[in-house]
């Protein structure tokens, strides 16, 4: 295990240069040490979405979600029309170009739940001040945000915004209160060591995402998602920010190089054709059990019927 030269000197920052940009020395705000700034709900990353609600039937939920979406869009449109000039007038002087773009998008799609200037709306959405652009990018590019409805866990779906738009919103949120950022670039796997990544994956990731990366069930309806559709940036962002119930793997814990190793391993495995034929979703003995009965036994019973049939 000498692959990673981990600096042991306590004072030293981790010299992480990824994708040509110097990473911030401590991208993970250490809230246990830093004095609380008084803003409520700073800890969450788009999570803790309001009070838990009683489960409803799927169909009704869908219908409600659609209706709510329309209502939300109308409301947001109205709000935008009402407030947009003011907002611009207030903030434009301090924001970069990207952040201004992001602010526009934020005010049209996110403000309903997360409030003006990312302050959060009690019971609807947490404050986004300090969550950083990495969290925004993860949530928006995987389509988890904007949410259709309040639910225990946001599902991956078709994203509403392009990657560039997501980065713009990220820049805006970053400007509001800092937080973890992703390095530049889209390729975080080419420089990774697959074997090291595999070792790290098995110790840190496989317990929830499973050896086959198909994800797995957590308690009470929560789940760890499959990694097969995740992009490099999304995996990186997930490790860095710990979305939803996923633990945070800050850069002190998994160095940028180690994160790249893990991404390299994930990419290799998800892009590796199964050598033993159809992989059955890499879900282990459960689908194998189905196959032996539904294919093996059924076919052989049919054969037996044919053999013993009169002719």
């Amino acid at each position: 295990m000498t692959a990673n030269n981990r600096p042991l000197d306590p004072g030293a920052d981790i010299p992480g240069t990824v994708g040509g940009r110097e990473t911030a020395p401590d991208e993970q705000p250490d809230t246990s040490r830093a004095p609380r700034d008084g803003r409520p709900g700073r800890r969450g990353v788009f999570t803790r979405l309001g009070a838990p609600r009683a489960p409803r039937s799927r169909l009704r939920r869908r219908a409600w979600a659609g209706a709510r979406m329309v209502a939300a869009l109308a409301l947001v449109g109205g709000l935008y029309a009402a407030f947009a000039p003011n907002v611009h007038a207030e903030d434009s002087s301090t924001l970069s170009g990207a952040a201004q773009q992001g602010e526009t998008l934020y005010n049209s799609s996110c403000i309903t739940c997360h409030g003006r200037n990312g302050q959060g709306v009690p019971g609807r959405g947490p404050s986004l001040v300090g969550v950083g652009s990495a969290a925004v990018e993860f949530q928006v590019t995987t389509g988890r945000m904007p949410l259709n409805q309040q639910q225990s866990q946001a599902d991956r779906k078709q994203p509403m915004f392009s990657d560039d738009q997501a980065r713009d919103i990220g820049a805006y949120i970053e400007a509001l209160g800092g937080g973890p950022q992703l390095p530049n670039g889209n390729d975080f796997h080419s420089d990774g060591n697959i074997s090291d990544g595999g070792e790290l994956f098995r110790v840190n990731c496989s317990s929830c995402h499973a050896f086959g990366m198909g994800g797995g069930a957590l308690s009470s309806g929560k789940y760890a998602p499959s990694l097969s559709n995740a992009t490099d940036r999304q995996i990186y962002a997930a490790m860095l920010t710990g979305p939803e119930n996923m633990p945070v793997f800050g850069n002190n814990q998994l160095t940028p190089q180690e994160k790249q190793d893990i991404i390299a391993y994930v990419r290799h495995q998800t892009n590796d054709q199964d050598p033993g034929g159809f992989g059955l979703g890499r879900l282990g003995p459960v689908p194998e059990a189905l196959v032996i009965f539904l294919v093996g036994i059924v076919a052989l019973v049919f054969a037996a019927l044919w053999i013993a049939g009169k002719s």
Partner: protein
Amino acid sequence: MKRRKVDLADLPARSAGEIDDRLQVASPLRRLFNKVFPDHWSFLLGEIALYSFIVLLLTGTFLALFFDPSMQDTKYNGSFIPLRGIDMSGAYRSSLDISFDVRGGLFIRQMHHWAALLFMAAIVMHMLRTFFTGAFRKPRELNWIIGILLFWMGFTEGFAGYSLPDDALSGTGLRIASAIMLSIPIAGTWVTTSLFGGEFPGHVILDRLYIVHVLIIPGVILALIAVHLGLLVKQKHTQWPGPGRTNSNVVGVRMFPGFALKGGGFFMIVFAMIALLGGIFQINPIWLFGPYKAAVVSAASQPDWYVMFLDGSTRLMPAWEFRWHMFGNYYDIPPLFWPTVVLPGILTMLPIFYPFIEARFTKDKAVHHLLQRPRDVPTRTGIGAMAVSFYLVLLVSGGNDVIADKLKISLNAMTWAGRIGLLIIPPLAYYVVYRICLGLQQHDREVLSHGVETGIIRRTPEGRFYEVHQPLGPVDEHGHGELPYAGWVVPKKMNRVGALLPTLRGFFKPVETVEDVENEQSSNAPVSPAPSRHHEIGTGGRS
């Protein structure tokens, strides 16, 4: 030297004579050739198990040539890139080498694993057939018990084999096995440390499991199979009731050539099935799991299907621990003990004693060679349905996390559903199946009494409609059939009594023309007044 002219036609007889001079096998050999076997598809389920076992021996021998059960640390240097440079045991390294660096090794490994799953599946199917048809009754109780022992031997053999590659999944399984042993009162800790040579995992367990897997249990299974088949030959096969079939004869075909050809052909088909599974469906991809490390685990950790029901029972078990203070020490029975030691114990002893329990309750001490249709013994069929549903709830619960994840159900809800289902579903299954059996019986009796529905509707002069029924045999003065209820198939369609053309043959589409069918003279009606003509004795095939 003058070459003697060899008469080829004379050769077989002469060589047979030469052999018999020395071995005197003529009459036992002929007795073997002439042994009669009844023919029914359900009698072939046990054969699937037998043939899978042969494939297991063949593929296992190949694997043993390359496998190394060592737990010594080595560094992997084979061709599977994602594991290069990783520390692992010799067992895992050699399993990877079989998968990636031995030509065709992965194919043989997958065949071996699929054959193991099929072996166990066929044993279970065979047991179900034996149970539901009453084939376990006197004089076959011993063979029934041997069958149960074979299941548990296969279970242990499979578990040992699953553990050998020393990948993370098999190590997790072994970890649970050690915990199960630990949970046994009084002897648990001693048994565990003795088997593992100290604390889990130690350095010897794979060597021990290896010898268990390749020598001891296969030897025991072979011996049990030999006795199983020996008893089958000695007692002769059971048969379905039917015309000409009695409790004191066997109706079927002689072993050679007819039965042997079918058996040999079926072996090839089973072998082919295993080869196709082994080639087409990936099984146990150990390279995804990595080497076993005590800190590593994966979501959806399951054993193979035949162990899964015990995993299910463990998952459903409530958190009940018995702990008390006695003689200055604490004593403890962990919750693991009940679903993994006590339950399998019950599940072994109940079926072993079932033939005797049933005989006691039914006061039936007679020798039985004729099978019973499940509908004719509703109580037994209901009990069987109860057992099957109990087992299925456990089996499904063994994979409840995968089901929860894929179908987006709460995991906790799945567990509760399993706990409640385990109590509710079996009695429900008993009741439903019992009623179904009675209903089917009733329908058979109605047809015997009133005849087959012809589909011809007549109208009486008074304007009443009625359907014409075709009696199956002679009728009494009331027009009611006089055929007794015989516990065998009652024809319910006109073509089955020869009044209409037989249906065209063919599995998915007809393979013969209407003329073919018309030309065929044999009617093979299963119910006939008297077996005067020979061909009315059916062979009991698919009907």
